[in-house]
C-alpha cells in the first residue's frame, strides 16, 4: 500500500462531479436534476442501464436492512431489478425464482461510499492520472469531477469484490475552497463515465476548509494563505453567486457562467454541499456562513472533530462523514478519536463512515465495525444494524439517492451484498454483489468479476486480488 491517498489529502484536492439528469428508467428519483444546461439538452446525461437480472430469492439469511432493522432467518426476493419483498421464512417466493441459500450468511444493502477519488485519482497513480484537483484557482465550482473520472480505474473492481460497494460519490480534491461538482456513480464497469452515472442522482459540490487550500495557494503567495483568507474568498464568491442568481430571470440575463450556475444551484437547494472540514471550530464557522447565504451543508467530510460539537451537528441536521480511526497525519487531524462515530450516534447526529481511500473503500464494513466496537467499549449502546446504516442508508441520504437505494425496502433498486459471514467481522467477505438485480460479482465464479482494460494482458489479470 502506498501513501498516495494521504498525500492527495495533504495536497488537498478532490473532484466534484455532477451529472445532469439521467436517461435511464426513472425510478422514484427524489431530487430533480439541476438545470445544468439551461439553454440546450441535458448536460452529460447518464446512459446507465441496469444489466439483465433473474428473479432471485435469498433464503435463510440474516438481513441488515440498512435502516437499522434486522431479520434473522430472513428471505429477500428481487425481480426486475427491484427489491420485491423482505421478510421472514414464510415470505412467498415465485416458483421461477433462482434460490440462493443464505444460511450462515448475511445480506446488506450495497455499501455506499460518500467520499471516493476512484477514477479521478486512479491507480496506477502516475502523474498522468492526477486529475482530482484543478489547483489553478481556489474557486473552481465550474469543474465537474465526471470529466476527470477514468472508468478503467482498477479500484472500482476491488471496491466491488472486496468491499461490496454498489454506489459511490466521486469528489474533486480539497486543494480548492470550491472544488467543483461531484458525480454519483453506480459501481458498474463501463466504457464511459456516463454509463456509470447514477440515474436521477443530484449533484454535489465539494468545498474545503482548513489547511489544504491555504497551503496550496499561500505557498504561491495568493489568497487564501490563512483561514480568515479562506472565509473571505468564500463569502465574496457567495455574494457574487447571489447576484448572478438574482439576475438569472431578468429580461436580459447574464452570460452563462459555469461556476456560478453550480453555485446558484446550491443556493436553490438542488446541489448538495459536501464540505471537507476537520476541526469543530471551523465547522461552526462554515455553518454560520451557510446561514448568511441561505444554503445548507449536507455533510462535513473527514470531520474528525465532530464529536466535540455533536449536539450542534444533530441540531443542524448535518451529517458527519468520518473515518473509524485515522489520525495524526496532519495538524487538523490531531484530535481525531476512534469514538467519533459512536459519540455522534449517541447525540442523535447523522453518521457516515467514508473512505477517501482506494484501500479502505474495500473495507468500509470493517471500518464501521471498529467504530462500533470503540463506541460499545465506552458504554454506548449501538446495534449491529445501526452500524450498517453508517455505510448504506446514511451515505445514500447525503447523496440524495436514499429513495432509490441504500436500504432493503420493496420497490427500491436491488443493490445488495450477500456476505459469507457477519459483515462486521474481520473474517467476512462479499460472496455475491447485485446491482439493480444483476449479479455483478460472484466469488465462486472467476468470470463474474470485473477486470479493467488496464489489467488485461498484465501479470495478475483476473486474479482474486
Amino acid at each position, binding site marked *: 500500500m502506498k501513501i498516495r491517498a494521504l498525500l492527495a489529502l495533504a495536497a488537498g484536492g478532490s473532484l466534484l462531479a455532477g451529472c445532469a439528469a439521467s436517461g435511464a428508467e426513472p425510478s422514484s428519483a427524489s431530487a430533480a436534476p439541476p438545470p445544468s444546461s439551461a439553454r440546450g439538452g441535458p448536460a452529460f446525461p447518464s446512459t446507465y442501464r441496469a444489466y439483465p437480472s433473474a428473479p432471485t430469492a435469498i433464503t435463510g439469511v440474516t438481513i441488515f436492512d440498512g435502516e437499522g432493522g434486522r431479520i434473522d432467518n430472513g428471505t429477500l426476493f428481487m425481480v426486475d431489478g427491484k427489491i420485491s419483498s423482505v421478510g421472514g421464512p414464510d415470505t412467498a417466493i415465485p416458483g421461477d425464482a433462482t434460490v440462493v441459500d443464505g444460511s450462515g450468511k448475511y445480506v446488506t444493502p450495497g455499501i455506499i461510499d460518500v467520499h471516493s477519488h476512484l477514477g479521478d485519482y486512479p*491507480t496506477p497513480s502516475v502523474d498522468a492520472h492526477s486529475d482530482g484537483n484543478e489547483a489553478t484557482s481556489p474557486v473552481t465550482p465550474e469543474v465537474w469531477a465526471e470529466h476527470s473520472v477514468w472508468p478503467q480505474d482498477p479500484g472500482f473492481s476491488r471496491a466491488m469484490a472486496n468491499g461490496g460497494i454498489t454506489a459511490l460519490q466521486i469528489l474533486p480534491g480539497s486543494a480548492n475552497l470550491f472544488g467543483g461538482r461531484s458525480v454519483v456513480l453506480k459501481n458498474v464497469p463501463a466504457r464511459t463515465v456516463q454509463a456509470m452515472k447514477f440515474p436521477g442522482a443530484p449533484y454535489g459540490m465539494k468545498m474545503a476548509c482548513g489547511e489544504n487550500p491555504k497551503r496550496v495557494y499561500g505557498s504561491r503567495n495568493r489568497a487564501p494563505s490563512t483561514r480568515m483568507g479562506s472565509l473571505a474568498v468564500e463569502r465574496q464568491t457567495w455574494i457574487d453567486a447571489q447576484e448572478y442568481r438574482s439576475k438569472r430571470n431578468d429580461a436580459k440575463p447574464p452570460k452563462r457562467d459555469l461556476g456560478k450556475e453550480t453555485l446558484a444551484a446550491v443556493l436553490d437547494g438542488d446541489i448538495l454541499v459536501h464540505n471537507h472540514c476537520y476541526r469543530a471550530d471551523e465547522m461552526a464557522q462554515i455553518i454560520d456562513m451557510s446561514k448568511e447565504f441561505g444554503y445548507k451543508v449536507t455533510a462535513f467530510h473527514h470531520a474528525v472533530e465532530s464529536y466535540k460539537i455533536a449536539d450542534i451537528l444533530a441540531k443542524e441536521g448535518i451529517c458527519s462523514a468520518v473515518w473509524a480511526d485515522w489520525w495524526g*497525519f*496532519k495538524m487538523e487531524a490531531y484530535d481525531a478519536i476512534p469514538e467519533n462515530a459512536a459519540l455522534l450516534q449517541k447525540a442523535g447526529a447523522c453518521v457516515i463512515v467514508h473512505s477517501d481511500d482506494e484501500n479502505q473503500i474495500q473495507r468500509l464494513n470493517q471500518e464501521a465495525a471498529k467504530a462500533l466496537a470503540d463506541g460499545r467499549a465506552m458504554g454506548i449502546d449501538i446495534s449491529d444494524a445501526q452500524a450498517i446504516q453508517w455505510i448504506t442508508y446514511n451515505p445514500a441520504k447525503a447523496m440524495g439517492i436514499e429513495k432509490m437505494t441504500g436500504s432493503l425496502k420493496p420497490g427500491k433498486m436491488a443493490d445488495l451484498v450477500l456476505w459469507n*459471514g457477519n459483515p462486521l467481522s474481520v473474517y467476512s467477505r462479499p460472496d455475491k454483489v447485485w446491482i439493480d438485480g444483476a449479479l455483478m460479482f460472484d466469488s465462486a465464479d472467476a468470470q463474474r468479476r470485473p477486470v479493467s482494460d488496464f489489467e488485461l494482458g498484465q501479470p*495478475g489479470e483476473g486474479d482474486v*486480488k
Partner: protein
Amino acid sequence: MKRLSLFFASAAALIAAPLAAQTTAITGGKIVIGDGSAPIEGGTVLIRGGRVVAAGANVAIPADAQRIDATGKWVTPGIFAGFSRIGLVEVGAVSQTNDTEADKSVFSAALDIQYAVNPFASPISVNRAAGVTRAVVSPDSGSSIFGGYGAVIDLGQDENPITEARAFQFVELGEAGHRRAGGSRAAAHILFRALLEEARTYARNPAVFDSDLLKASDAKALLPVINGSTKLLVHVESANDILKVLDLRKDFPALDLVLVGANEGWRVAEHIAAAGVPVLASALSDLPYGFEDLSATQSNIGRMKDAGVRVAIGMINDRDAHQLRYSVQYAGNLVALTKVPRATGLTWDEAFAAISSVPAEIMDMGGQLGSLKAGRKADVVIWTGDPLELSTQVEKVMIDGVDQSLSNRQMRLRDRYSNPTPGALPKAYDH
C-alpha cells in the same frame, strides 16, 4: 491536576514495578504462544523477572505468585510490528515533528534512527493501548538510496525505547530508489555497488579516505552491511526488482537480506524461498499503485508462505507511523481469505505468528521476543476476545513484565467530550 498526579503516580509505580522476585501468573485464559501453534484453552502464563517462565496448559503456579484472572479472555504475546516508522513522527505533515527522512542531510547510511525515536510521542501510547509492544523502526531514504540504521524498539511508557540499536540498514531499490539514484534502476544498482566498493576502499585505509560519493561516516556504516553483520532491509515491490536484489549476492555474498514490501513477491516466490531471504510484506495491497505493483494481491503473503518463504506483516508507507494497531486487522483479513475461493490466506495460527514470532525471528530476535515461549521477554497482552477480531478490546499490556498504562490523549479527548455540551464551566475545565 487530578490526572497529572495520576500520571506521576503511575510513573513512580513503573520505576518500582520490575521486581525481580515477583512472580505473576495469568490464569484461565486462552493462551496464544505466537509461534504458530494452536491456542491453548484455560492455560497459564507465568512471568518472573520480566521474562516468561512458562506458558501453557499444565503450568505449576508458585504459592506466592500474584494472580491475574484471565478467564474468558485471550492472552498473547504483544504485537511485533514487522516494519514501521513509529516514534519518528508526531504529526505527519508538521515537518518539525517528522523524523522519518533527512533529504537535506549530507549523510545517508550513517544516519542512526535511535537518536530520533521519541518514546513520549503520542503514537507510541496510542498503539501500546492497542496491544503493540515492539516494532521495527526504519528511517526512510532521503537524499540517497540508503536511509540509515534502523532499530527495534519497545512501546513501553519508560524513557528507554531501544531494544536493539543499529539492528539493520535500510535501502530503497525499487521505484523510489530509481528516483533517488538519479532516474533509473540502472543508476540505483550502480550506485549501490559503487557505494559498497567505496566502503571497502575506506576499510583498507580510513585515514586517507576521500570520496566524491560517500562521507567517511557513511562508508563506515556500510561495512557491516557488506560483511553481513548488519541486516540490509531492502524496499522493493516488483518481481523483476526482487530478482535483481537477490542477484546482489553474486557480488556481495555476505549480504544478510530482508525484503520489505514485495507486492509482487508471489510471482517469484520460489526464488525468494531458494535464496532463504525473508520478507516483511504489505498485507492487503491489491492495486497497481505503480507499475511495480501490477500483480499486487492480498493473496501475496499466503502464496509466498506456501512456497516456503518466511514472511511476516510489515506496514511500509502505509500509515506506518500512527496505525500499527492495524496489524491485527490485517492479520485477520489474511485469515478471511481462507474462505474466499481461489484466494490464499493464512490459518489463524499462522496469521498471528506473522505479527508476533515471525517478524521477531526475521530480525534474529526470536529467542528474546515475539512469543510466550519460556525465556522470552514478557511482552504480554490480555484481550477481551479473539485479538484479530474487530470487536475485541485490549485489557492489559505488559512490556518486559511491567504493567503498562493504557491511557493516551485520544482517551482524554474522548472522556472530555463524552457529553459535548459544556457544563457550568467551559470544557477546558474538564480534566
